[in-house]
């Protein structure tokens, strides 16, 4: 197997994404005394280009799906699909992140479990935590949230569908205000204003 460089991977995937390509960048990061580098490819694409790009990626090397990360940016929700290719080859692994941005008015994304079944856990989690509909997901039940968790509340959203303040219970503060701490010295009384 000929190993592609990060730039070559970015180019190949850009071609696969076609019109759905938005931006790409390659980064490196070195640690340790010998300065060996780990390499990352970040691709921003549209939702429609996700499956073709991923199929092309799987042709290069069967990707290890790490997780689908997320970020609520206000009007949109970003989904970052983190894949690793070239696993099993010492120090050659490359992180390929496919980012898609979904408008909050249309939070739908295709399932990638047809290509990588191992992504199911992460997709189920995105549904319940972010309110995203994963189209054609083979198992759409809740995963982590309790059964009596209210519908329409999505813990990872930062808008009005996020966790409402009345669901938040600050355990650390419970009972503090009722303490009678008598040995706290009183605040210095300010001098009464003269004249």
């Amino acid at each position, binding site marked *: 197997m000929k190993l592609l460089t990060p730039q070559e991977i970015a180019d190949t995937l850009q071609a696969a994404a076609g019109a759905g390509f938005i931006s790409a960048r390659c*980064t490196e*990061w*070195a*640690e*340790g*005394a*010998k300065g*060996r*580098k*780990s390499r*990352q490819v970040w691709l921003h694409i549209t939702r429609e280009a996700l499956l073709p790009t991923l199929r092309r990626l799987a042709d290069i090397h*069967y990707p*290890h*799906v*790490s*997780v689908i*990360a*997320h*970020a*609520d*940016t206000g009007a949109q929700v*970003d989904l*970052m699909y*983190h894949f*690793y290719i*070239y*696993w*099993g*080859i*010492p*120090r*050659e*692994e490359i*992180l390929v*992140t496919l980012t898609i941005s979904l408008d909050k008015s249309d939070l739908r994304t295709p399932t990638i479990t047809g290509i*990588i*079944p*191992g*992504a*199911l*856990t*992460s997709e189920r989690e995105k*549904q*319940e935590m972010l309110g995203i*509909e994963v189209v054609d*997901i*083979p*198992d*759409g*039940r*809740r*995963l*982590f*949230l*309790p*059964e*009596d968790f209210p519908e329409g509340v999505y*813990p*990872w959203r930062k808008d009005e569908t996020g*966790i409402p303040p009345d669901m938040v219970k600050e355990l650390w503060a419970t009972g503090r205000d009722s303490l009678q701490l008598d040995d706290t010295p009183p605040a210095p009384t300010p001098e009464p204003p003269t004249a």
Partner: protein
Amino acid sequence: MKTIEVKKPSGYFTQIGPAHPALKEPVMFNLDVEGERIIKADFAPGMSHRGIEWMGLRRNCIQVIYLAERICGICGITHSISFVRAVEQIAQIQVPVRAHYIRSIVGELERIHSHLLWAGVAAHELGFDSAFYLAWRVRENVMDLVEYLTGNRVHYAMIQIGGVRRDITREQFPRIEESMKFFDNAYDQLARVFLDDTTVQMRCRDCGVLTYEEARQLCPVGPTARASGIKKDVRVDHPYAGYADLDIEYMTPDRLTGEVRGDVYDRIVVRLLEVKQSIALVRQLLEQMPDGPLLAIPKPAVLLAKLKGAAGEAVGRHEAPRGEVMHYVRLEAGKDEPVSWKVKASSYSNYLSWIPMMEGEQIADIPIIAASIDPCISCTDRVALVQDGNRRVLTKAELHRLSVEKTRRIQASLSAR
């Protein structure tokens, strides 16, 4: 949200969990069984969802390190190391090499202790309590060593953004070497007890098999993947910390047994081999550790100010004892707290492989199969109550009230006697 109707199966339906002696942490297995055989397996985690990521988005990066450290009760370093690596990449902080080595040393000691803990739990699930006591007795030594080096037995508080907080000095080396010698012997003993024992072989060979192809598609990590012959190990694949300078091998079961079967026995083999590997790695790291500072930015106040100005996204990873841990972090300039933080713990990737492992096996194999991926779930303060077909959740306060009431009742009936 779309839901799937579960088809009514033949045989009968039984549940194991969320609280069950076979499970050290709460997860629920829904099983269709025929006699003793499992026809269909499903699981429901989330009995202990704590909303850690939500909490992290309301704290600054230094606070998040310690929150991350507490994601897992056993791995005190994996989550904090992953988180700080992501933040360092965003803020472009170059960590001193000595700090990288210290991170790796603590990481390897943690692997030894975690694998020994697992070996004990697995033995207990098999009903082999003597091996459980043996493994945990041996583990006590590494716990003492970690306490000696970091100040605590778990939750080491060693990691800081840009380095480590405490040094491992030359005066401490003999104590570490003493422990490594102890583990050399302990490894021999453990390998004998676990791998040569006839009853362990009877229970674990060809039980809970995960084939190479299944493992490739379901993307498990760590020893679960390696036991099926999948060569995935962040320490080898991805150069980071002190590991970047070492020559590390993928530990697959064929190194000891000459074949890969992907069963529970192979997972025991992999973990034992990794204990041995970790001993060697600690020695190498100590030998090669350079001198130098421990922190890129020694003053925490300065660090906080720098992080407030940092922006970008990055991924930090670490090979935890259970496999890959990954943290995605996104920072924005002007904000103390991360705008996005996604934690991927190792068991998160391993859950799905339970299903092919369990189907077709016996009820008796559930505990050891469940334990064989070394699941790390977690604990919480709520309990589900089913009454007259209705389900509701009891809070800690309610539980406390109920138990007080019951104690009063019993006391009253006793005094009435």
